[in-house]
């Protein structure tokens, strides 16, 4: 029994979300009243301890999560603003569960990784990191559209300061670009949300912003949205466009990706890791949670467009990554490529594809987060990220080289590591409906291996050409801890993904059922969904005792790749 078990179910999500903010506000109050001022060290230590507790809280959420239920769990709902349908409404399901756990997992690691790096204005740094955490967790568990929008926007502010204050030379340009890009999309979504609210009111005669109706009441998700036969801005196509733009910018999908390399390169290491690890997932999460179930007919109609963009993103991101001289920029472009895979899986509209995508979100969070942290470690030693400034690092930093190599392998999808499982499931899912897309995307996997391995060769192997590299110290104990903590889930997911896939099943099935039902109402491209093969029934027992079909497929897969 941990003390966390004492928190009632109805409050657990609230506590998890607001814990980081509460800690940081507490610190501010302490700072205000204490004399002399608290030292930076106390702030850092308190933040780290708080982030560990925060991780514990997310694990507690996982422990209480019932994988057999497809709907929302641990629900909490109270009225926020009377009479306007704006409620404080939280809940979690299999889709958001692991994103929450990932968010909780990354923060302590990131804080530990940058323990000595952030020397300037540490207190403000800690404040923004923890505030950011609250924003991200809140966005993942909000079930009221208004609440979601608030969290979605609130996240931008800490990130804006993190990049702008602690970033590189072009930080101000990067941070403003990041902010404005994201805002443009989300503001259009705001109009879309309000249109939906009034359409919902016209249909059900209640004014509410609850996405999923509470206790049988109709929610926004139940609103009938037609494909045609209404004013154009009430049709699925345009509302889908408004939502999709907001999420596509955040992901970022191909033509909207230009803010990402700037933001990543200029951001300080911890901000890059969080940005790549979690912030980007909000875009893909938004697609699964809102855009697809709300506007399934439009999503099906425009799936070829989205898939084409995703494939372009995969190949284009990989090609651009290949020619980068800056390691961080290379990793940033690899993100564009990897998130293309996630989008691909989502628009496959089947269990395999969507679960693969959800898993790949977690994978990308861990692998790319780890890459940014590792790049940060070498940057702190050499103050450069140019590939040409390195060479032969493996001779002087063997432990670092090992961790980097494992992470690289995970990123490019080597079997038995996490990236492989996700990418494979996505490709299988997509192949079912869009074989051409799967074929093109596979080339992205190959290109991924090319640019990553090429970079690793140039950085780590060969002779040491720069004298400065000869005196580099290998990882300290703190850094080893950070790197090991990141490698554990990579191997875990790679070897036994069922731990993570099984809890998603019920929720993803519910999602697909919703898409089918709502897509059916509008009668457009129904055939695609109905053509889905009959999925096996939801296993009643927990994964350990059952013999899930998914696992069989994966086992076969491992055998094949082993040959």
């Amino acid at each position, binding site marked *: 029994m941990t003390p966390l078990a004492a928190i009632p179910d109805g409050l657990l999500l609230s506590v998890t979300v607001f814990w980081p903010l509460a800690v940081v506000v507490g610190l501010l109050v302490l700072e205000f009243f204490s004399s002399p001022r608290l030292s930076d060290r106390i702030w850092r230590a308190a933040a780290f301890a708080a982030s560990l507790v925060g991780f514990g809280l997310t694990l507690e959420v996982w422990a209480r999560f019932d994988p057999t239920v497809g709907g929302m769990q641990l629900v909490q709902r109270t009225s926020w603003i009377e009479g306007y349908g704006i409620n404080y409404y939280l809940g979690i399901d299999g889709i958001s569960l692991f994103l929450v756990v990932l968010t909780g997992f990354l923060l302590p690691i990131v804080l530990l990784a940058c323990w000595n790096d952030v020397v300037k204005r540490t207190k403000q740094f800690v404040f923004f990191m923890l505030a950011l955490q609250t924003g991200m967790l809140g966005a993942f568990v909000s079930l009221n559209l208004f609440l979601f*929008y608030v969290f979605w926007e609130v996240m*931008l502010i800490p990130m804006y*300061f993190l990049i702008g204050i602690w970033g590189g030379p072009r930080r101000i340009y990067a941070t*403003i670009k990041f*902010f*404005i890009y994201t*805002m443009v999309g989300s503001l259009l979504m705001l109009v879309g949300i309000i249109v939906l609210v009034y359409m919902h009111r016209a249909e059900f005669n209640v004014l509410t912003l609850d996405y999923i109706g509470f206790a049988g009441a109709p929610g926004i998700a139940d609103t009938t949205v037609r494909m045609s036969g209404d004013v154009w801005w009430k049709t699925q196509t345009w509302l889908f466009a408004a939502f999709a733009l907001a999420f596509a910018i955040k992901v970022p999908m191909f033509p909207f990706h230009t803010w990402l390399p700037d933001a990543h390169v200029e951001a300080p290491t911890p901000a890059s890791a969080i940005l790549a690890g979690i912030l980007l997932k909000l875009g893909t999460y938004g697609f699964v949670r809102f855009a697809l179930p709300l506007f399934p007919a439009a999503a099906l109609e425009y799936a070829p467009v989205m898939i084409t963009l995703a494939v372009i993103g995969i190949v284009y991101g990989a090609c651009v990554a290949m020619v980068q001289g800056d390691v961080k920029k290379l990793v940033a472009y690899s993100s564009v490529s990897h998130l293309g895979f996630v989008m691909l899986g989502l628009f496959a509209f089947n269990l395999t594809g969507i679960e693969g995508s959800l898993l790949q979100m977690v994978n990308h969070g861990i692998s790319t987060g780890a890459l940014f942290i590792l790049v940060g470690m070498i940057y702190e030693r050499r103050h450069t990220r140019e590939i040409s400034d390195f060479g032969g690092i493996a001779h002087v930093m063997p432990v670092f080289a090992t961790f980097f190599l494992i992470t690289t392998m995970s990123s490019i999808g080597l079997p038995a590591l996490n990236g492989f499982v996700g990418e494979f499931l996505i490709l299988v899912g997509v192949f079912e409906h869009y074989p051409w897309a799967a074929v093109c995307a596979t080339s992205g996997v190959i290109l991924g291996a090319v640019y990553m391995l090429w970079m690793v060769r140039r950085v780590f192997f060969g002779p040491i050409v720069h004298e400065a590299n000869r005196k580099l110290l290998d990882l300290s104990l703190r850094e080893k801890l950070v790197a090991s903590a990141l490698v554990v889930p990579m191997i875990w997911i790679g070897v036994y993904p069922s731990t993570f896939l099984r809890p998603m099943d019920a929720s993803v099935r519910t999602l697909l059922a919703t898409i089918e039902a709502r897509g059916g109402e509008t009668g457009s491209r129904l055939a695609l969904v109905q053509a889905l093969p009959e999925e096996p029934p939801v296993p009643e027992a927990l994964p350990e005792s059952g013999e899930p079909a998914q696992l069989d497929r994966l086992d076969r897969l491992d055998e094949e790749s082993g040959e």
Partner: protein
Amino acid sequence: MMPNLDLSAISPMIFVAVGAILLPLLEVLLARMIERRRSWLGRTVNREMASTAIVIFTVLLLVLALLRTVGTFDLPVAHFNLDHPMIAVDQLTRFLNAVLLISAILTVLVSSRYLADIGMDHGEFYALLLASLLGMMLLGAATDLIMLFLALELMSIPIYALAGFQRSSLKSNESALKYFIIGSFASALLLYGCALLYGATGTVELAEIARGFDPENPLTLLGAALVLVGFAFKIASVPFHQWAPDVYEGAPTTVTGFMATAVKVAAFGALIRVVAVGLQPGAEIMYGVFWWLAVLSMTVGNVMAIIQQNTKRMLAYSSVAHGGYMLVGICVGTQSGYAGLLFYLLVYTFMTIGAFTVLAILTRDGREVSRIDDLAGLHETHPFAAIVMTLCMFSLAGIPPLAGFWGKWYLLTGAVERATAIGDTSLIVLAVVLVMNSAISLAYYLRLPVVMYMREARGADRPDATAGALQTTVLWVCALAIVLIGVVPGDFLILFGDYDLIASARVAASAVSP
């Protein structure tokens, strides 16, 4: 025959009027006492104490007026003179008066120290301010074209004088003169419009004008158009906005804050009444006019603000843009639309006064912090001012969960509600223009936090700031209002009774809505 007067209906206005009349006398009296040093009082009182006394007196009157206004909010509509109901004290009037009084109180609190800093600490400042405030309060209450014009002039003329209050400054003089000429021009247009409306309908009462309004009659239409142009000048709506940046830049900072908020509140209040009551039959024709005014104001205001280097000019263009947002409420023309507009006026007052207060605090020895870049490193020299400025900027940009977001939210929901009800695409386009403009506005609102937090202060130029206690209070009030209205707009001011701001705005709007 005794006229049938009801003084209690206009008691807040009486407080203000008494202040406006008594303050110059009080000033002279105190000055003479200090000069002659005859009595005991004259020997002990010095100039600083005298000016403090004037400030306390002014604030006391204003607070009394505010309490009276808020306390009588729920009462039914009252008229000063039932035989000739030129002003109506209804919920709309009371809501507007409350906002105006808040703006005035905050301005007075900031000004005492600011005036000393620019070497202009004279009591007539407060007298002028109160006189103008009286005009504003009457303007929102006017139900009659004569009263409307009188109130408008009573509001404007003291403001011209206030804009030029910094006599030694060339810019302040220029500002006053420019404002005076353009303002008179606008008043003349408005008056001409009133005359035409009177000619066409044979009455000056708004309700009667509505009855006699004939959309086919060119005289009526011309009259209505001229009245609207007059208002468009006052609210600095594009294309009648050119005066705003120069006037805002030249006027003393606290006056600019007052101009940017109170004048807008009063003018919009009167505009709501004129449009919703007097010109109601012409709503369809006016819709197009307001639609374009709104779109142009938002877009031109925001785009021009991006290229400004001077903080006050930037805020001037930003205020033009916010005028455009508020015009969306007029376009919508329903209770929700007006309620959104009224709520916006309230939150806009806090955000704008907060920003100008920070600028006022940074003024030292008459030297203003004019360029945006001069704010570099403010987070070190005056962290609290930097935080408040940042909150104001994010709130003006409409980022949740701050107050400014709620303002935009209600305007947007009002527009979309109406659009879905009547299936009107142009309102949706307006909503999209509004949100896109919010995104454009980020380009300049984000610059201030960038300068304050992300640039280092430059040696001797670093902003020096030591705020007086009253100024710090104003900063706290604005910051708390921005955050609290943002987090609990329904239960704001719960400490002072159950004031639901949004519901209040709706009640206020219901006073004139069809």
